[in-house]
């Protein structure tokens, strides 16, 4: 093997190329991870369907069914936030940092609103997680999804903070792109979850 490319300028070019390459790997790896993560949700969904179709007493005694109106508002907010975060990313690509920050913050606010709505709903419910299979699966699914929303909002907070460091988004935007992808993922999961738990009662 030759040592022809020991020239330092070429090395710099190679290192730069390698950095981009690594960035691509990270996105690829992150997508692989999300696919794997989706199987956990899929397993919980399958469990929910099995329980719902086979359990003798599905709802806890005295409970008629879930209220759909507030969760629907929550759903609309969360789904819209996916579009908002898309525009935030577009601003970053156009190197409009303040546009990015504004829309990014709006996404965070919508995510926080969703979490707040979820907490209010939880506190108003007449059953707990030990109340039968419905109680268990309801809190498991919404709780596990809520944890993902919380993770998403925290990640967004970190990315927002990073945008104030000088030149932080000059090269790659892997952190922003992956946070945004994660957010879309959490959204899609919620749509399935909403249909399973709230629509199909």
């Amino acid at each position, binding site marked *: 093997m030759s040592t022809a490319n020991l020239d330092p300028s070429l090395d710099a070019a190679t290192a730069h190329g390698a950095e981009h390459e690594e960035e691509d790997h990270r996105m690829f790896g992150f997508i692989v991870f999300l696919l794997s993560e989706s199987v956990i949700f*899929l397993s919980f969904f399958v469990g929910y369907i099995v329980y719902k179709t086979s359990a003798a007493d599905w709802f806890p005694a005295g409970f008629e069914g879930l209220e759909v109106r507030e969760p629907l508002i929550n759903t609309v907010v969360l789904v819209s936030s996916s579009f908002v975060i898309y525009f935030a990313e577009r601003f970053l690509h156009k190197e409009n940092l303040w546009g990015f920050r504004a829309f990014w913050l709006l996404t965070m606010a919508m995510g926080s609103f969703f979490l707040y709505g979820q907490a209010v709903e939880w506190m108003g419910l007449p059953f707990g997680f030990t109340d039968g299979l419905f109680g268990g699966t309801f809190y498991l699914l919404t709780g596990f999804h809520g944890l993902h929303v919380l993770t998403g909002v925290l990640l967004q907070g970190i990315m927002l903070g990073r945008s104030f460091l000088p030149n932080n988004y000059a090269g790659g935007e892997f952190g922003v792109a992956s946070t945004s992808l994660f957010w879309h993922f959490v959204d899609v999961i919620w749509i399935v979850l909403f249909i399973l738990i709230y629509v199909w009662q």
Partner: protein
Amino acid sequence: MSNASAVASLQPQPGAPDNWRRFFSFSTDHKVIGIQYIVTAFVFFLFGGLLAMVMRGELITPDADLVDRTVYNGLFTMHGTIMLFMWTFPMLNGLANYLVPLQIGARDMAFPRLNAAAFWLVPVFGVILVLSFFVPGGPSQSGWWAYPPVSLQNPTGNLINGQSLWLLAVALSGVSSIMGAVNIVTTIFRMRAPGMGWFKMPAFCWTVLSAQMIQLVGLPALTAGAVMLLLDLTVGTSFFNPELGGDPILYQHFFWFYSHPAVYVIVLPIFGVFSEVFPVYARKPLFGYKVVAISSLIITGLSLIVWVHHMFASGTPGWMRMLFMFTTMAISVPTGIKVFAWVATIWGGKLRLTTGMLFALGGLSTFLFAGITGIMLASAPFDIHVNNTYFVVGHFHYVINGAVVMGFYAAIYHWFPKMTGRMYYEGLGKLHCALTFIGINLIFLPMHPLGLQGMPRRVASYDPEFAFWNVLASLGGFLLGVSTLPFILNMLSSWVQGKAAPDNPWRAIGLEWLVSSPPPHENFEQLPVVVAGPYGYGSDEPLVSNDPNQKPTEELAREHS
């Protein structure tokens, strides 16, 4: 990669330093991590084997006289858990870590730090599992599959008990495995050397890729089941608790949806090892390379739809039994294709019986036997008859101790010169191989007649009519324990003072054999340009381009991607 390290990688590097301290550091070098995995896994293998030998000591007489029955329950639970989660998975991750970047012509894994983090979780959950021996009530006693309601009993009433520690350890193992799988899949997809198309990739990499894809799809299901089981155990939800209206069978589905494919996670890389080892020592190309490669992916697909064959006796409806009986038999087709390919590879070859080759041949023959009993068990009427007997134990130990452990040994001997830069002692190696092969057959063959006669598994005492075969099996078990001694002696003494190994002691074809032994830091001074398939034995075709006028490989790499 920073600029400085890019320059450093181009400097001629001496062989990896013989500094043992690096194996105790948070190294991000895939070769160090690979050896860390392998050695850690082997320590747990010895521990799990020790537990098995206590069990065989108990079973040498019909009465439960050596250990208490509850201790015996803990022993088989921990034996199974340790052997699967702490020996086979880390061991194959170690092999994949060490070999995949070298074989595909990459400088390291895609995510070196993630790689190191995944490894360092192994000792953490290993220690958690071992600590469960010392909590009140002892370790988990519900078997390695932790079926509820047995696993929900919690007689001590403590939050920290054997079962919850078991679940914690398995969960951490899952996290580590997912990190490893993301890393390995990304590495194989994105970091192959220029010119290395899919069908120029060694069969080992194909099998590792197939195995890790199973991890990604299957493991989350076990995680979901484990989370629900942990909630049942700790906070009193009712998912799997039949007393509260839960469904314990659903847990079995979650568990086996992962844990059956897990068998393929373990055995597929061993198929890869066989596919690497046979051509080298038979001096012939791997027969039907493309078919062997693709059959790995077919096994991945089929492995995800066979799990109910573990539940034929769990009140499974007839149509489901029938369906899964067919899929289970179908999976033996791609597996059989591989066996035929290996036999055709060695057929008429000029065999060199090194220790690695002998282990591979031994592993192939035990695997064939396991495959035959596997087909028997796939048939639901037979399976219901021998369900939970020693026949099943004999069958899967022929797979896991026969094929997999012998395959691991084959891999270690085959790549030992590459990993350490030293040659091992053939005489000791062959002694090790003979003892292992005799030991495996002596312990696991008698389990088949025992199972057919109806001896149940997981019992500390048995009817005296079963004594003869049990004594034989116990002797085999002790022999298997003894067989590790020449191995340890061989590895330690060869690593310290063995003869220096040349770069390619077996005259093998493959990128890993083109670099020095042990390979330098970052493996390749300049990324190789692959121009031929991986098994060009008997042809003069070069594996990599040695045209001095070729484009700089980085440029080619960019065009390639």
